[in-house]
């Protein structure tokens, strides 16, 4: 008696008839409408009465929405497996994870030879299939290698690249008969898909036993392997025709079908039943009269027996797990979307924009309730003591790591809604997982904008809790100055609102040091009226770099508030002038105004290229990013400093840094203007008198730190988001740079109240980098 406890699923096996293609597709649609889980088609590429199976599967998947599609089974000798693998991955991406790949070693060799295939002996065809599976899994990236080598005799890879990444691990099922094939199922496959008419009950039983033994010998749990079964039937007499040839397996009334199928599920381990039929009425009656009864009786019997129906994780996936995380205890609401190192989706979620990661688990909650569950789970994991929890909005964090090695990441990407709450007040509600380019695009049709930084791919959550020094900053202030309320999940899992009227302490902290006090799950922001902006990029000869910086700084400070400028200075190259690139935005759509604002910038130094200036909507500058995942590697090295004026001395010292060649990315953003209107103690971002934000990135941490530390007296504070200095001996100094004394004291007091155990300690933590024994803290 074997019941592997797999969920019960039902499919159809439809003749891929070329005669009336619309009818063939229609049967697939019917199966979906009737609630079948799966529609399958046989694959005989030498059969001219049939449509090509892969073409048909792709077409059907496109014409349906939920049903899975699978070949039953694919003819591997006629389909080069590397291309088949990419095709399956592509169909998985297009269909949202609805393709399952069933393979066969090929059976009708005369027909295949007539189509130009080399004949293989039965043993060779099994070897070839085994090699094909290796090729396919390698192409799907299951090896974790970036260059693929499979030295097969029949199928090989010699330096191919894996990809594209699939939405989930595509199951590989085999149609198999002989002992060697069954052993291959047990060792390498995720399912067995024979036809009852060909193997009979004895064959089914013996086959399962062989598969179980082979699986166990290979270190796999037999429960990792799904047992599917093609069956044929007619609701009439036993003489009725059926889609598999020979007498139908099932006949008579639906109740008789149930009697025949029930033991196959409860005693013979079958969990997916695929009905071979092209008859609409049979398809319908099975779904309406057999399936419900089967489901009910199976559920009843399994409950009575206490059958283990928990999800089985394949060996390959289990082997990649990291210590200190109870993967099997992930809450069911989060389990399906959770990504662990062995999952196909891992490559796309492990890293952030600038940083490579190897987290032990990435949780992807879809709403506040799931964020609460994710946080509770993360806190309960042993690893979180040693590896701080990472929280990710858009994955552009520099100081906020948003990934880690072996720990838990909470990825808020699915909390990405943007909605207008109050048109008259220009109040919008935005999720932390939305990106600023998407926000800009959503607000643009109304003539609104929210200043947000310089790149549309940056996530809302990180930037709107830290500061937000953007292209409209002098005109409209920091991004945090537009926040009117937040919904916040605290370390203990409670969900609170914070605003001027509710939890004002938290509201103060969340604007400037939000990452320290909780996870914001929703922002209410006020947008500004911005019809169009003038935007110019200029390339300047900055040969006298110190002089240039000083003059640019003076030009900025002399400009009206409607003008904000950012400056990038390139790494100096021998024999070439130092080049500075300015990007200047004017909050005006009047060409005369824009030109008047830009003229002084053009006059700072000789221009090395024609300056381009345009009047555009804000979202043309801060635009929605290209889709795709992050692929950062290594660790960024970045230092930040804020200062009030680019004095001659400051300019000279900063020029020295650039000319040393130690920084490959040197940017100064002008801030101040409207940002200065907010009192320093109104938010946790206290640097209201700063007019310039400097960031420098370098290849060598030690060399950049040496130069930057020597500049300490130039600066008045730093913007914590852009600084990655984590030396224990400088922690206090960095904290002091980020938070003046009164700010730091207030922040610590709040932190001790809402996060006494120091759960949120990933990003310049005010209580230090270690977890706090909360009970000891209370004592």
């Amino acid at each position: 008696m074997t019941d592997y406890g797999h969920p019960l699923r039902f499919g159809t096996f439809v003749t891929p008839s070329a005669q009336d293609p619309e009818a063939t597709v229609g049967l697939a649609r019917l199966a979906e409408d009737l609630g079948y889980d799966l529609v399958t088609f046989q694959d005989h590429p030498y059969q001219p009465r049939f449509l090509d199976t892969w073409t048909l599967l792709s077409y059907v998947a496109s014409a349906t929405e939920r049903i899975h599609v699978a070949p039953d089974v694919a003819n591997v000798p006629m389909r080069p497996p590397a291309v088949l693998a990419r095709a399956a991955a592509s169909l998985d991406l297009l269909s949202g994870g609805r393709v399952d790949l069933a393979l066969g070693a090929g059976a009708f060799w005369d027909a295949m030879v007539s189509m130009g295939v080399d004949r293989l002996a039965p043993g060779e065809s099994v070897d070839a299939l085994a090699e094909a599976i290796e090729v396919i899994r390698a192409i799907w990236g299951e090896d974790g290698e970036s260059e693929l080598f499979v030295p097969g005799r029949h199928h090989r890879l010699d330096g191919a690249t894996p990809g594209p990444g699939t939405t989930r691990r595509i199951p590989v099922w085999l149609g198999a008969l002989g002992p060697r094939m069954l052993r291959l199922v047990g060792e390498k496959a995720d399912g067995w898909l024979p036809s009852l008419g060909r193997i009979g009950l004895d064959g089914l039983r013996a086959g399962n036993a062989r598969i179980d033994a082979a699986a166990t010998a290979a270190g796999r749990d037999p429960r990792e392997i799904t047992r599917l079964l093609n069956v044929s039937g007619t609701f009439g007499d036993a003489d009725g025709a059926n889609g598999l040839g020979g007498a139908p397996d099932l006949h008579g009334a639906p109740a008789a079908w149930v009697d025949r199928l029930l033991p196959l599920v409860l005693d013979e381990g079958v969990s997916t039943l695929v009905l071979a039929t092209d008859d609409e009425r049979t398809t319908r009656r099975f779904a309406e009269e057999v399936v419900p009864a089967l489901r009910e009786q199976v559920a009843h019997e399994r409950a009575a027996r206490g059958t283990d129906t928990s999800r089985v994780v394949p060996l390959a996936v289990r082997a990649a797990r990291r210590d200190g995380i109870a993967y099997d205890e992930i809450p069911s609401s989060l389990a399906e979307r959770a990504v662990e190192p062995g999952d196909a989706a891992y490559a796309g979620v492990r890293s952030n924009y600038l940083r490579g990661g190897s987290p032990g688990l990435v949780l992807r909650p879809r709403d506040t309730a799931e964020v609460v569950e994710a946080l509770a789970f993360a806190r309960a994991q042993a690893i979180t003591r040693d590896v701080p929890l990472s929280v990710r909005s858009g994955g552009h964090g520099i100081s906020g790591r948003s990934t880690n090695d072996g720990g838990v990441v909470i990825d808020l990407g699915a909390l990405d809604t943007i909605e207008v709450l109050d048109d008259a007040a220009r109040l919008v509600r935005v999720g932390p997982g939305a990106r600023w380019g998407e926000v800009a695009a959503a607000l643009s049709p109304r003539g609104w904008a929210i200043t947000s930084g310089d790149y549309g791919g940056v996530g809302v959550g990180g930037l709107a809790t830290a500061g937000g020094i953007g292209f409209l900053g002098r005109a409209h202030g920091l991004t945090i100055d537009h926040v009117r309320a937040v919904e916040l999940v605290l370390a203990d899992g409670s969900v609170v609102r914070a605003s001027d009227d509710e939890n004002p302490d938290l509201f103060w902290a969340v604007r400037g040091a939000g990452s320290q006090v909780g996870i914001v799950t929703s922002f209410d922001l006020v947008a500004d009226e911005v019809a169009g902006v003038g935007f110019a990029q200029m390339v300047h000869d900055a040969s006298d770099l110190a002089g240039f910086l000083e003059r640019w700084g003076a030009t900025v400070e002399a400009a009206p508030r409607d003008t904000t400028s950012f400056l990038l200075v390139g790494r100096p190259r021998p024999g070439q002038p130092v080049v500075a690139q300015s990007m200047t935005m004017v909050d005006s759509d009047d060409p005369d105004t824009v030109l008047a604002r830009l003229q002084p910038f053009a006059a700072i130094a000789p221009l090395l290229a024609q300056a381009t200036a345009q009047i555009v909507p804000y979202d043309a500058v801060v635009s929605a990013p290209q889709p795709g995942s992050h692929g950062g590697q290594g660790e960024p090295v970045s230092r930040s400093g804020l200062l009030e004026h680019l004095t001659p001395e400051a300019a000279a010292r900063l020029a020295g840094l650039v000319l040393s060649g130690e920084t490959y990315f040197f940017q100064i953003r002008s801030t101040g203007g409207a940002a200065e209107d907010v009192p320093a103690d109104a938010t946790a971002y206290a640097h209201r008198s700063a007019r310039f934000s400097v960031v420098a990135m370098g290849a060598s941490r030690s060399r950049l730190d040496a130069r930057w530390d020597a500049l300490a007296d130039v600066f008045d504070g730093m913007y914590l988001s852009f600084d990655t200095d984590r030396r224990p001996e400088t922690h206090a100094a960095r904290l002091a740079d980020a938070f003046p004394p009164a700010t730091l004291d207030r922040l610590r007091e709040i932190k001790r109240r809402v996060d006494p155990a120091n759960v949120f300690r990933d990003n310049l933590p005010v209580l230090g980098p270690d977890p706090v024994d909360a009970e000891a803290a209370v004592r």
Partner: protein
Amino acid sequence: MPDYGHDLRFGSFVTPSAAAPHQVVALAELSEEVGLDLVTFQDHPYQAAFLDTWTLLSWVAARTERIRLAGNVLNLPLRPPAVLARSVASLDRLSGGRVELGLGAGGFWDPIVAMGGERLTPGESVDALSEGIDVIRGLWDTSTRERLVAGGAHHHVDGAKRGPAPAHDVEIWVGALKPRMLRLVGAKADGWLPSLPYLQSFEALARGNATIDAAAEDAGRDPRAVRRLLNVGGGFSADGGGGFLRGSPRQWAEQIAEVTLEHGVSTYVVMGDDPTTLAVVGQEVAPAARELVAAARGVPAPASAGPDGTTADGEVRA
């Protein structure tokens, strides 16, 4: 031989990026909405950042109703021609006769070998393409029930059953640059589909056409049996400085008409993923170019049917 007299057609060439599958499909759907005749995708099965072209074409077929679909061009070394023939016929049937076969001999041998394919010399790749075409056409030809024996050393079938036949006469368009390939196009293909950036000049285009014409005649075929297609790139600006497809939609139409009348190109496949460009090509450039060509040929302008079937009115310019 200038102007083979073919109807003017316009198509898109959308990057089959795996990072944004729904955007890719949306661009294909947009191509149909804006009245383009054809949507195409390149085929590099060794490129892990791309969606599989045949799967994508099949998917797009189910999402569209009128637009033609083609690989640009399908990679024969990694797509055995017998199965390819049946796949094309199948999709042509499923889509109501909208598939054409853009086919290439393959050019990047290292990645082909990396995927398990065989390395061929340029000469061998021409032979292989020739054999592939024979196999494909033979399998499509159900006018006889005789089992098919076709091909040669690289691709062959030996007693295969013919069929299913496609729903319409599928054209085989070949990407080609060198003389042997061009002669193969003239002898056996229904279309020549090069990329203007690779040709580098219209002189090269003219030479290619001449080679094809001569080879067609040698094979007893009318050169007009070979459609001349062209992958082009461009952008719109007020003036464009006179560059090819760099100016206004009107300038595009004029330049295209000139190339059609002088070089016989009849299908322009516009490379690029910008929806606005595709819309302007379909809605402004295409009708204008058709009018100009019709006027020059002295025939009535064909009805430029918009997506809802209405005909565009327009001046016929002399």
